[in-house]
């Protein structure tokens, strides 16, 4: 998925997948904190305005 | 077993895209755009791609409908045509030819459209004719 996103011109860092057990709450929280930090550093998605102004027909 | 691919022209608009209808044992099962057609060169729009679905739709009208006591009822062609002719004449005689207008369709042939405008202008006597493709 990351490679396909990258090929399509979307930074692959915007997708993150990791296996975490449901018993590992703190690890999940830490992972999410890091992910959000990374996303902030990347800035707004290039897709943000792409579909703007489109209405369902 | 009888499997055929039948070359035909799309009825949805005036472009005239060509495609093959896949017919298996008398039932139309698919649409394949014609690669060698100079019009569409193997491409179709979403309407053309789905032509095989409407052809055999049970929702298609197979008989004329006439509203009687507020309800649409199936009637014979003779009855429908007699009624339409009678009412058109009455309306024309009472209110004039320009009180009648005709809307024709992109889904019929060029020749049928020609006939309708001819009927409208020559038989009824009005220029009130338009077409759904003139959007």
């Amino acid at each position, binding site marked *: 998925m990351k490679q*396909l996103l990258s090929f*399509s011109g*979307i930074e692959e860092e915007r997708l993150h997948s990791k296996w975490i057990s449901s018993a590992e709450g703190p690890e999940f929280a830490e992972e999410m904190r890091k992910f959000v930090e990374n996303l902030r550093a990347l800035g707004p998605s290039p897709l943000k305005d792409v579909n703007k102004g489109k209405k369902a027909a | 077993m009888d499997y055929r691919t039948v070359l035909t022209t799309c009825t949805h608009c005036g472009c005239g895209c060509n495609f093959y209808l896949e017919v298996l044992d008398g039932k139309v099962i698919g*649409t394949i*755009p014609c690669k060698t057609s100079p019009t569409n060169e*193997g*491409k179709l729009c979403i309407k053309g791609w789905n032509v095989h679905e409407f052809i055999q739709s049970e929702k298609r009208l197979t008989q004329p409908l006439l509203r009687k006591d507020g309800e649409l009822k199936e009637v014979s062609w003779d009855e429908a045509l007699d009624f339409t002719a009678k009412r058109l004449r009455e309306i024309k005689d009472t209110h004039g030819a320009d009180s009648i207008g005709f809307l024709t369709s992109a889904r019929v042939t060029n020749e049928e459209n020609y006939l309708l405008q001819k009927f409208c202008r020559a038989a009824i006597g009005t220029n009130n004719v338009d077409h759904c493709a003139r959007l």
Partner: protein
Amino acid sequence: MSDKVKDKVKELLSSGKIKGFLGLCSRDGNIAPHLFVTEDELDNLVVGDKSAPGDSRYPLNRQLINLVRAYPDDTFGILVRGCDERGLAALASWNQINPNKIEMVGIACPQELAIACECLKPYPESFVDGEKCEGVTAETVARIDSLKVKERFDLWLNEFSKCIKCYGCRNICPMCFCNECSLENDELIRKGEIPPEIPTFHLTRAVHMAGRCIDCGLCSEACPADIPLRTLYKKVADIIYKQYNFRAGYDAGQKSPLNFLGGLPE
């Protein structure tokens, strides 16, 4: 190059081995997909080269699925190029056809077509006509790979923006056999929204082509907006090859690593 194909089909039909042969015929000035059931029809058999080699190929595998679903006990013959053969192998691995009930009559593509297609294997395992030519790697994919991420984004945004959501890429695809299609799932692709959401529509389809696309290129040829879909799916196939060492249809016995329906690949 159709004479040797005609001889082979004649032999198959006269021996009663096949019920019909799905191929191409010259008819009314066009090249049409056609089911040959008698030997005398074979005069009009062609291999789909009208103005250029392979310019009028049809989704014969897709038509074959329609036939075998209606007549599962009969054996059919079919004209195959390298891509079609891969398609049949992949369809068999997805349990869509019974390979024992199919007689392939192969032709090898000329180098010119292999270059135009950037085809890795422009010939079937066995063929009655044509000559084996060199496989070609995908320059189009390499070119996009070499761009910066922003340039890639702009390129695909421009391409996807042309989409009229005709579903032609899916409708022509010989590997699209699902009864329910994700592209018609309202949760993913909103119904009645034209043009489709970018890039959701195209990437959803690209993901579904992973481990499935056999690189026949009919999607690109059917696209009225000339979106280079084939390049996108070539990349997806490359990713699957890199990750799982698998290319759809190249090894007849092998299942896709993404195919869990028939059990995990061995």
